[in-house]
């Protein structure tokens, strides 16, 4: 009897529960995709379903200020990812390879940076800019994005560096390679997957960031800021189309990456 009810629990109740939670997780995505085909006005998508249309896809860039916001997001994400990935990887190398006074403090700062609420990070950075009269714009957004991405890159790269075999580097140096050559010809190719993972995470966090950006953007609008600003006025269909295209792009990239990893193993 006890065994029977236990079986039923795992065979039936648990999977149903899991399915419900997964549907809950995916439902807004479905809504976004469905509404990108809603045949309602150009100014705003109505909550009501009007009918199916493909017409918003060719017109995805017909809202100049929305397109500009998307461009800003891509520039910010691109630049801040390159900077944060470089700086974060350097810190990860130092933390994995060396024991040095101050290492504990550096780790503590990383941890604080990741666990601090975004609103405090955004508000304190804004306080600094206000105090020195720094005008807010693209530069301050990029400064902010590098600031919140460094620690994430460090944590990611560090995890991949853990099993690194240093004898390869020593062999290269025994064969007469200088430290610079050793790094680019031996170390970098080996740790590249880790750096790529860190960089992708940084890019994803940057392109999606709302809170910290909102505090330090001034009059500049990034994609999330533009959408937030349009919420009470009316969301044009282009927002859902862009969201859907970005989603599809991301998913295809991720699946390709997974397949490639599988093939290697």
């Amino acid at each position: 009897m006890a065994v029977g009810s236990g079986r039923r629990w795992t065979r039936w109740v648990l999977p149903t529960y899991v399915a419900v939670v997964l549907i809950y997780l995916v439902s807004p995505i479905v809504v976004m995709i469905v509404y990108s085909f809603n045949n309602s006005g150009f100014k705003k998508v109505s909550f009501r379903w009007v009918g199916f249309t493909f017409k918003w896809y060719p017109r995805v860039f017909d809202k100049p200020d929305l397109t500009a916001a998307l461009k800003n997001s891509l520039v910010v994400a691109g630049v801040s990812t390159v900077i944060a990935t470089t700086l974060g990887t350097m810190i990860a190398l130092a933390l994995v390879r060396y024991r040095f006074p101050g290492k504990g403090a550096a780790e503590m700062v990383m941890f604080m940076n990741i666990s601090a609420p975004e609103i405090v990070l955004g508000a304190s950075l804004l306080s600094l800019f206000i105090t020195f009269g720094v005008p807010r714009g693209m530069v301050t957004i990029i400064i902010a994005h590098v600031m919140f991405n460094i620690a994430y890159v460090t944590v990611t790269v560090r995890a991949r560096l853990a099993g690194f075999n240093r004898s390869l580097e020593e062999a290269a140096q025994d064969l007469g390679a200088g430290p610079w050559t050793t790094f680019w010809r031996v170390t970098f190719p080996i740790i590249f997957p880790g750096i790529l993972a860190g960089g992708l995470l940084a890019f994803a966090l940057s392109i999606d960031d709302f809170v910290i950006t909102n505090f330090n953007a001034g009059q500049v609008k990034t994609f999330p800021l533009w959408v937030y600003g349009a919420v009470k006025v009316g969301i044009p269909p282009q927002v859902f189309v862009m969201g859907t295209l970005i989603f599809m792009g991301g998913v295809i990239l991720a699946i390709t990456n997974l397949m490639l990893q599988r093939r290697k193993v």
Partner: protein
Amino acid sequence: MGKRLAPYMLVFPGGAWLLLFFLIPLVFLASVSLQTGNLFDGFRFTWHVRNYVDAIDRYRVQFLRSLLYASIATAITLVASYPLAYWIAFRGGRHKTTFLFLLLLPFFVSFVIRTLAWRFILSDDGIVLGTLKDWHLLPQSFHVLATPTAVIAGIAYNFLPFMALPLYVALDRIDRSVVEAAHDLYANRLQVFLRVILPLSIPGVFAGVLLTLIPAVGDYVNAFILGGTKTTMIGNIIQLEYLTNFHYPVAAALSFVLMIGLLIGVFAYARVLGARSLEEYV
């Protein structure tokens, strides 16, 4: 010589960036919170501690509301994602990666758009309520948007993966031979879960609660998009005071109180649960 300096040279650029734009700004946040003045005459540092009294006095309700909403939402994410994480870790089998991928799928859509989609789902004449009203299953006046339910549901939705992932990591790490040993020693399924699996997964619960609760308390996107005038959270107030009213000192005082409050909460919580290093999970 070079060997000794090498780690510092590697840490320096990133460390300097974090010092300048993360640690030092916290000092300026504190400094601004003690200033007096206004946007036109300028602000001066005057040790104006009254900013704190005023801030807490005026916005006590929003502080408590944020804590309440965030706590309820965190509890919901825990209840929703524990069975999910358990299922993936213990019964996922060959499809583990697929399930994890589904769990991460929301991250491929912008946070703001995800929340906006909930506004469409929950709207009075949207797919769900509109249909139910058309079928006369709900009264025409029924609404969910602008209520605490909508805001809490939105927060719970948006932070669910932050709870589920550390839970999954903790559950997946459990040594299967320990579970088998418990079975061999005639523990029934419930006992195995309560006496072996649950205690071993506590570090995951700890990390998940922190990763959900901290951002949830300070969140204002859900309250703005899904809420109304009666669901304002402390994040909305901080944003309003900083970016619309330019009452920098009050806004800074509010942020500082929020940060200190969360810090004290985290330390007390860590003490109670006697958690191991958190860094393993982030």
